[in-house]
């Protein structure tokens, strides 16, 4: 019985209010952070850092943001790509139009603009619910797709509508090597993960979840749906916006609106559902699953020395990917995070079956 909470008595509520009340969890999370900040960058190849870990971290961040909205507040959104785009383009404008703007500030301001747009598009949620809302959020998606292509001001009058940034630095340190980029994204994820965790286990988080689970009852205990929903939209689009800015600035370097297309929105929704709605870890699991799986599947034939045509390989990859999604949903409709906690529960009982 390696994993158990028996015997860990909490004598104060403050102790129980810690993020990870169980000692083993605390140790695990510290180990994880050390691993992520120190060991991984030292051991990983450039390809791994640049092409896998960095996008994985950024998309985890975006998924985290989306999870606030969908998982905690229960408002399904298919417009995530739009908020990422707003974050990226806004950050871009701050970056190029204001001389000497610090990178971090640009990114955060990008998030702030995304917040504004997010709240604006969140207003319909006060009346429209469920799938209707989900589809209606596509309005945001297509509108921003259009706006960033059509309105030249947003792209600093670049003829083609594509923008790019270069020469990034934080506090005088250049952000150029894969390790630096990785660490920057990781720091963002860690900080936002912590802040979000604080939010969702605090009063505001309870308001979101209350609205999600039963809005009439929530109103009766004095929760204002307007405030709860719009604050969820605000927090969510802030995080998503920052993730969008990172995606543009750090991962791509140059982008066009297609980088934040509807496919991105679906991809993120996938992540939060596969990972687990209403779970911080779930967002990260989900991002790992969705980012890593295709890359992994893509390389499988190679390991077995099979040479199948690229098209066939990629179709098979689609099929396996789709099948695995369905498979995981069947095994655990509440996502990988729930699967993980079930596993922990089993571990708690181990070696006695029940």
């Amino acid at each position, binding site marked *: 019985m390696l994993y158990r909470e028996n015997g860990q008595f909490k004598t104060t509520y403050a102790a129980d209010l810690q993020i990870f009340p169980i000692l083993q969890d605390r140790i695990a999370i510290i180990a994880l952070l050390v691993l992520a900040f120190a060991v991984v960058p030292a051991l990983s190849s450039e390809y791994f850092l640049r092409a896998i870990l960095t996008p994985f971290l950024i998309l985890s961040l975006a998924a985290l943001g989306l999870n606030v909205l969908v998982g905690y507040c229960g408002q399904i959104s298919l417009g995530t790509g739009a908020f990422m785009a707003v974050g990226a383009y806004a950050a871009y404008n701050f970056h190029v139009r204001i001389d000497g703007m610090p990178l971090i500030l640009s990114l955060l301001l990008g998030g702030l603009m995304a917040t504004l747009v997010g709240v604006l598009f969140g207003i319909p949620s006060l009346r429209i619910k469920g799938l209707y809302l989900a589809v209606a959020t596509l309005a945001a998606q297509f509108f921003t797709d259009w706006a960033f292509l059509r309105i030249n001001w947003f792209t600093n009058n670049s003829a083609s509508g594509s923008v790019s940034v270069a020469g990034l630095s934080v506090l005088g340190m250049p952000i150029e090597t894969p390790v630096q980029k990785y660490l920057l994204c990781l720091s963002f994820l860690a900080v936002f993960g912590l802040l979000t965790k604080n939010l969702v286990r605090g009063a505001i988080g309870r308001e979101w979840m209350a609205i999600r689970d039963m809005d009439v009852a929530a109103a009766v205990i004095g929760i204002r749906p307007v405030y709860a929903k719009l604050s969820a939209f605000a927090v969510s689009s802030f995080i998503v916006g920052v993730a969008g800015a990172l995606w543009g600035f750090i991962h791509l370097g140059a982008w066009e609106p297609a980088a934040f297309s509807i496919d991105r929105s679906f991809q993120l929704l996938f992540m939060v559902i596969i990972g687990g709605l209403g779970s911080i870890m779930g967002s990260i699991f989900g991002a790992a699953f969705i980012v890593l799986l295709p890359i992994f599947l893509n390389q499988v034939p190679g390991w077995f020395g099979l040479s199948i045509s690229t098209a066939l390989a990629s179709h098979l990859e689609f099929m396996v990917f789709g099948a695995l999604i369905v498979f995981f949903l069947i095994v655990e409709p509440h996502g990988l995070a729930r699967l993980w906690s079930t596993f922990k529960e*089993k571990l708690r009982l181990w070696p006695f079956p029940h």
Partner: protein
Amino acid sequence: MSSSPDIVLNVNGIEVIYNHVILVLKGVSLQVPEGRIVALLGGNGAGKTTTLRAISNLLKGERGEVTKGSIELRGERIENLSPADLVRRGVVQVMEGRHCFAHLTIEENLMTGAYTRSDRGEVAANLEKVYAYFPRLKTRRTSQAAYTSGGEQQMCAIGRALMANPSMVLLDEPSMGLAPQIVDEVFAIVKDLNEKERVTFLLAEQNTSMALRYADYGYILENGRVVMDGPAEGLRENEDVKEFYLGMGGGDRKSFRDVKSYKRRKRWLA
């Protein structure tokens, strides 16, 4: 497994696990004879609903599964049948918590209950019968089920099950949320169907006194185990049952105002 010919339902040491980890039933066995009313009693969370779900095969949707034991209907193993198959064999469950079809009107709800039947005349007659049992439903027949009161929904759920013309009904907390005289009526209906049409009932109830008044036999379930069973009269007289389920410790019914506030524990708790 010796099931005498007049045993309709034979539940044999079943274990149920939810979500792969939560063990809820720890070997429950019970038998329901043809044409009888059997009551399943027990406190909150004892596992009554779970037992009924296991029988009618509705566990899957709750992510539960029967991991041990067997369930036989008239000698046939039924663990792997679909709920629809069971309805075709005459077994219908009235689910706890009503589960009316929210967007359908009361009448449409009742009519879906007759999904497995084809004779229109009989169905129409049956509908009239249900309306006769529950006149309140008739007055609300055109309103969507979601917009009816709790009690009306409960009547609707019971009525809907009766529309299938079942030979055996699994009733889960039929009295919940019903006004006293409707509770009486529901039990009267149960008795009536049981006597006139020889419908067999398995009844999970919290309203122990009512249940024991109408049932022939009772099982008491606590913490996923059958802790006591016997003919209804016997249980009614049992001191423990009296104290814990009928609220009549020491003979008389105590006023709810005067009940001691120190915590009493059920002696059988496993």
